[in-house]
């Protein structure tokens, strides 16, 4: 039996601005009440030497993330990916996304399901 093809989300967090579009797009798509969403944006403020810091955001797929199975079946992007203001999220096969991940730093690959 060949293993099931796994799909995931590639996040280029160098460019995630913390706009929360993904989080609300998911809530809208599935009608989640406030506080529930398949995406949760995390803020990371890392202090650096010489009074510098790096301000980063990272969209995290929660237990509610279905990778928008209904949408992707129709050839549409997941709601979060489609609306991402910074265009820093990509949906695809995990193997292909992993290839792409090698091209630049500050990337995260999620395989929530």
């Amino acid at each position, binding site marked *: 039996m060949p293993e099931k093809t796994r799909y995931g989300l590639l996040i280029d967090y160098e460019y995630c601005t913390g706009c*929360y579009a993904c989080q609300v797009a998911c809530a809208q798509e599935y009608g989640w009440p406030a506080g529930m969403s398949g995406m949760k944006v995390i803020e990371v403020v890392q202090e650096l030497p010489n009074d510098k810091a790096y301000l*980063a955001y990272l969209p995290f797929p929660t237990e509610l993330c279905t990778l928008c199975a209904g949408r992707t079946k129709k050839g549409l992007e997941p709601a979060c990916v489609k*609306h991402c203001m910074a265009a820093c999220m990509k949906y695809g096969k995990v193997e292909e996304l992993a290839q792409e991940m090698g091209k630049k730093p500050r990337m995260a690959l999620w395989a929530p399901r």
Partner: protein
Amino acid sequence: MKEENLKIIRTTTWSAGPGCHGTCGVLAYVKDGKLVKVEGDPDHPWNQGRLCSRCLAMTQYVYHPNRLTHPLKRVGKRGEGKWQEISWDEAFDLIEQRMNKIREEFGPESVIFTMGTGRDIGAWICLLAYAYGSPNVMFPLSGIACYSPRIAAVETVQGDYCILDAAQWFPKRYDDPNYKIPECIIVWGYNIPASCPDNVFGHWIIDLMKKGTRIIAIDPRLSWFASRAEKWLSLRPGTDGALAMGFLNVIINEGLYDKDFVEKWTNAPHLVRSDTGQLLRESELVKGGSPANFVVWDTASKQPAVWDSQNVAYKQNDVKPAIEGEFRISLANGTTVTVKTVWAVFREEVNNYPVKRVSEISWVPEKDIIEAARLYAKSKPASIHWGVPIDMTPAITPTAQAITALWCITGNLDTPGGNVISRYAFDAVAYALPGAEGVIRLKSKEADKKRIGADRYGPLNKFIWRAQPDLALEQIFTEKPYPIKGMWIQACNPVAGIGLDPKRWAEAIKKLDFVVAVDLFMTPSTQLADVVLPAASFLEKDGVKSWWIPLQTINKAITVGECKPDVEINFELAKRFDPDLRWKNIYELFDEIVKPSGLTFKQLQEKGWAFPPQGHPSAPYHRFEKGLLRPDKKPGFQTPSGRIELYSSLREEWGLEPLPHYEEPPFTPVSQPELFKKYPLILSTGRRSPVYFHSEHRNIPWLRKIDPDPVVEIHPETARSLHIDDGEWVWVENWMGRCQLKAKVTPVVPRWMVMAAHGWWFPEKPGEEPSLFGVWESNINQLISMGAQGKDGLGAPIKNLLCKIYKVSEEEDNA
């Protein structure tokens, strides 16, 4: 989603809903007349399918249980929160009768028409105010300190406004062959990921960063951009003018400017009299000469030559004007005066700002100032994108003059990837905006004479057709020179959002005889009205958008309750106040607005959007060379001299300093050392949230959950010294008042500064007085005064104040 009965309506965001200045393409999914979803329009050149959190929350917004859906009439005392539902006919009749009474007794100028930030309201509030006969359309922020001052200042220097070039003028955007990616962008006081909608789609800059653009971030806070910038300049708030002068100093003294541009396109060669410090005019040089013409020193003939402003050319042939130097000239009255070129006096002013001094003023290290100036000047092309902090100092105009000089003398004006002149698409302008006269106008210039502040402030007669809000607030109390009796408040929340010293605004509103508020929800401001009218969101109306490119329509997708679009409300009343109103219905008005495009409203609606073609004055590039900017089609600019005025003849005329310079804001550690002892932290306000637009959206559950409390950012070390923990409620206080905010302890702010969120009220708290939705608890504007506007009526200290911070005690916490 079942496809049956599902309609997808393509439209454009503008105002109510996301709240912003919009222009994003949206697909509204409507089933059985009900909005089920919104998505970004993937074909739209502005946002390419992307959409922000506020727009994605539209289903919660339009069907919110607290949405106003019927006109309301006050039945209790002002602010008591007792309302009666009335029909639209009753509401229109009541308003007509009460406002006609005021007009008859006190004149039309006795009613002020006040709006929040621009958006799809300016045209329609002008339509109503002008039909009624009042010139007093107002944006009630002190010093009109949001964008208009910058636009006015830039137009003072160069005749047209300009913005960051992200290829927004072209359907193919970044792929247009005429476009160039900026090598460098100065992001000057702008937290674009969060404040994206304020004049461009902020994430375009992120698109450009991916294509190689390097960032210089100027921001006291470690913004998203600052943390990814090539250079981050953490300046003391309000010292932007000094920093800009420092940049000019480096760029000019290191010879990094575009000499050809300066000589050919600016008034650098025009002569300034050393005795009066004013521009030498032809009328002083020869009898019968024009005071509108200027004088240069011709190095070829070794005598003065005349610059003919009307012809945008020298009167003599083959003039080789001196750019530098001092000369002696005999005047028509027989006297002799010493004169210098504009470039010489401009350089003298710039040389008052050596980098060491600029560093002392701005707290930015010398090395960073020098390196940033060089990076900007050497990058070709380079662009500057600025934010509202520039407006939020009384010396806005000289600050903006300095920054304008930067893109001009480096040759980045109206070049691909530089700062590109931004005109309304096809020059289709609905109403009088800075620098433009629109379709909707006051009936006579005479009627405009009573506009508040028009007699005092030059820019208010040249660029900004609004009442000056600091004077207007005072006039409500003094009733001088004439009484104010009524107020029409539309898309505006002066008590919770835009009003500084908001208790005084509440007091002012309560003093008036008749107040109408038009909004989508009850707010602290609508609570003080006599009549409240329910407005429509962008999904519930047809409309036009021409600010700036492309020209678009807003297309109605749904209806909610009895809500009416602002344009329809105002049109109905405009007809009642002015029986001669020249449009029969709103569609005739829309047709006239979009007419310059050659399309009717209906045709434009079918098309979706329209871009002006190459060669049109509203399409880039290099328009000043091609004669596309001036009505007479001559190369040059729409300034008094037809040139970029590094030395401003308009400012000279207004009795103000013609050259860019720095002025210390009024409430800083430097200008108020005594107050600083008592209030030892710099207070900056207006921390942007990506899920809110100013005072809006606190009632939208998806959004509120993301950013639930009014926060003040405080550095970990400062917090520790004050025994404040992250998440604790604190008082932020100064000589004006205090408010409670929640401490967000973060190294994002410098140790010496705190950054407070603005626009906070609590829709979940009681609406009636004294609570007014809890607006007095956390409204940071209670710490900011009105009346500190700049010398030209523009700009106000909003981001450069002082405060102290201390923990809210347990007793207070439980109260």
